[in-house]
């Protein structure tokens, strides 16, 4: 995965902790930046500081992709997402 890639946020419903906001699940965007590595939250909530490190990507979503025609045509929402939350699109 890299900057410029088109990605989709996985549709997922884990019972535990997860840091992919529901409003971006299933939506497509473009990777605009690498934030670096972070402790994978789903795991860190369960096992603490032993959780694995994973790359975090900033993904840009068009407002219209998230909200349909009710969004402003020039609104873009950026969300920082762990790589596991993303798949190629």
């Amino acid at each position, binding site marked *: 995965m890299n900057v410029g890639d088109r990605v989709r946020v996985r549709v997922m419903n884990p019972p535990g902790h997860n840091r992919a906001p*529901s409003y*971006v699940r*299933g*939506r*497509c965007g473009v990777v605009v930046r690498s934030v670096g590595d972070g402790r994978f*939250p789903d795991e*860190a*909530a369960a096992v603490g500081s032993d959780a694995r490190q994973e790359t975090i990507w900033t993904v*840009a979503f068009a407002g*219209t992709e998230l909200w349909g025609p009710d969004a402003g045509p020039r609104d873009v929402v950026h969300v920082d997402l762990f790589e596991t939350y993303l798949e190629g699109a």
Partner: protein
Amino acid sequence: MRALLWCEGSPHETPGMAYANDVGGMHGFGDLPEEGHGFESVWEAQIFALNQACVAAGVYTLDEFRHVMERIPPREYYDMPYYERWLTAVERLLP
């Protein structure tokens, strides 16, 4: 750029289950509250600092804290003052 951001065939049904904290896009929360200082009472600053100290000391991770807070049932969660949610989470994590 905006054309690139669009993806054909994106599902527009409700994308997933959410805890009470996951409010992005939700309707109905009303007007923005009046301007308030960072901490309005001593206990708010204290629970904030205590949580910071517990994370720094490795008592629990920030994600454990967030997860415990997210598991407060929505009805109670929205009824609580902001820092009471923190207090409730630390009460469950510290003992």
